[in-house]
């Protein structure tokens, strides 16, 4: 049988996948006050993983990334809901948020917001859902 030779594809994938992952982290962290956020960050990460699926096949990527994506959905949801619930215990309205400025060695003065924790939950949920859908559709034979 004719086998396509995708040397270029595989070589560029190893480069582009990392660019995509970096970009997705950027989108995740920028999310709470500029374009981006957990949802689009999760989509970007899953597109990086999709790229690897296309280049290397499902089995190999599963060996490289031994993550249970269904569990990831639940963990993400738990994180997102917990950020809301914490506000119940400290006596402020549900889903209240706050932010602070911290100074870190390399990055300098940056803003940290509790909305970002919610975003991380959304990120994990979207990542889990997308990869679950993709792998379920791909596995249908």
């Amino acid at each position, binding site marked *: 049988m004719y086998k396509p030779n995708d040397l270029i594809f595989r070589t560029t994938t190893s480069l582009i996948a990392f660019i995509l992952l970096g970009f997705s982290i950027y989108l995740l962290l920028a999310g709470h006050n500029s374009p981006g956020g957990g949802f689009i960050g999760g989509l970007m990460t899953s597109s990086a993983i999709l790229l690897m699926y296309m280049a290397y096949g499902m089995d190999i990527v599963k060996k490289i990334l031994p993550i249970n994506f269904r*569990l990831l959905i*639940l963990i993400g*949801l*738990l994180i997102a*809901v917990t950020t*809301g*619930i914490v*506000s*119940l215990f400290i006596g*402020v*309205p*549900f*889903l*209240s*948020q706050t932010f602070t400025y911290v100074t870190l060695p390399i990055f300098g003065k940056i803003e940290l917001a509790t909305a970002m924790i919610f975003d991380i939950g959304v990120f994990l949920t979207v990542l889990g859902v997308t990869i679950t859908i993709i792998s379920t559709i791909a596995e249908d034979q």
Partner: protein
Amino acid sequence: MSNLAVLPIIIPLLSGIIVAFFAKNVKVSRVLAALFTIINALVAVYLTSVVFTDGTVILETGDWVAPFGIVLVADPLAAVLVMTTNIIALASVFYAPFALTVKKEQHYFYAFYFFLISGVSGAFLTGDLFNLFVFFEVLLMASYALIVLGGEKVQLRESIKYVLINLFSSILFVTAIAFLYGVVGTVNMAQIAERVQEVEQTGILTTIGILLFFVFATKAALFPLFYWLPKSYIVPNPVVSALFGALLTKVGIYSILRVFSLIFVYKISLTHEIFIWIAALSMIFGVIGALSTNNVKLIIAYNIIPAIGFIMMGIGMFNEPALSGSIYYLIHDMLIKTALFFIVGAIVYVAGTSDLKKMGGLIHHYPVLGWLLFVSAFVLAGIPPFSGFIGKLLLLEGALENDKIIIVIIALLTSLLILYSIIKIFVNGFWGEQRHIEPTEKKPLAGFLVPVAFLLSFSILLGVGAEYIYPSIESISTYLLNPELYIDSVLKE
């Protein structure tokens, strides 16, 4: 500000997530699900008592002031419905282990069940029209997962219809909200009501109101839009059917009740007049459907439609006894529909078929089941002193106050035919020759019957204790007839 209003939404959501972690271990998830449901029910009861003693509980989420942020409003109507939802949830969670196979339970049944409860409670509690859409989506997502649970061929075929019709009405819902936002510039229900009041509901607003009515009528399965309901409600498991029949259509009718008692109330001669006729047609067509079939599940599913018609009739009359009747009937119907779906689930389980012609003589083996069905038939049809009677009495009183004699006749006739359609199950299924498939072995039924008895006891309490309950219901309908009360409690400043 009180976080109490968000608890009926957030507890099921969190429980759903926690239960999903233990999905493969059925025993643990059963225990956890029961535990969380009991906690949630207690919270709902507490919320209701707080609402009835201290007045409406408002929560401005994220500390954003009312018209700008999302606001949750636990007013008496919402609180009562949330409590009823939780009573049904409590019965369902104890019924589920008997009705479901272990494999279905492992496929995240309890997680989706909790998400469904969360979405329903959210839809009742929200004070924001767009958020109502969001909670509709939450409960629809859960319902999509529940309707295909098991993955049989017939389920997949019916669920395609179900998903498409709901998707279409969701699109229309967003469109209608966008129109409304374009006209009044807000999605907060209290502020919409205030602004609609200022311009005295001009023509465009009535049009948007009818659009919204169309959306909610699709969800509630009113007359021209009920065709999708019966077949798709009978394909899933009995416990899922019961949750759907008791909660999903009622969320639609609750939305109509809320929107057309709070926002679009200035052209009653047009909108509410249409409602009365739609209600009459729903009753007639629903009960004809129920009489036309020999499938026991289908009989109960068709019976949802006339019940929605009764509630709609009260909304159409829009006077105090009629609205009280609607609310009474709404609560009564949620309870009794769940009980009937449970009973029918048990009948199908013991008879091995859902075809009435192949059953017979079940009363010899299962007398308790038979008499429970008999009592529920009376409750549903409204024989005094059961709860259906009080609701219908109030509805008819309201109708007579508006001199709508024809609908009174239709309603009474429909009640009679409803009674006939349920008694048909009793007569054909329980009396006569013993004809079910394996007549010798007697299957244990206690697990099925305890939740049914639990629900029926509430239903009977609602009827017998009407004297104590009626003042609260009456206060709700007075509250609904004065939208200023709602607006003032949300927009305090």
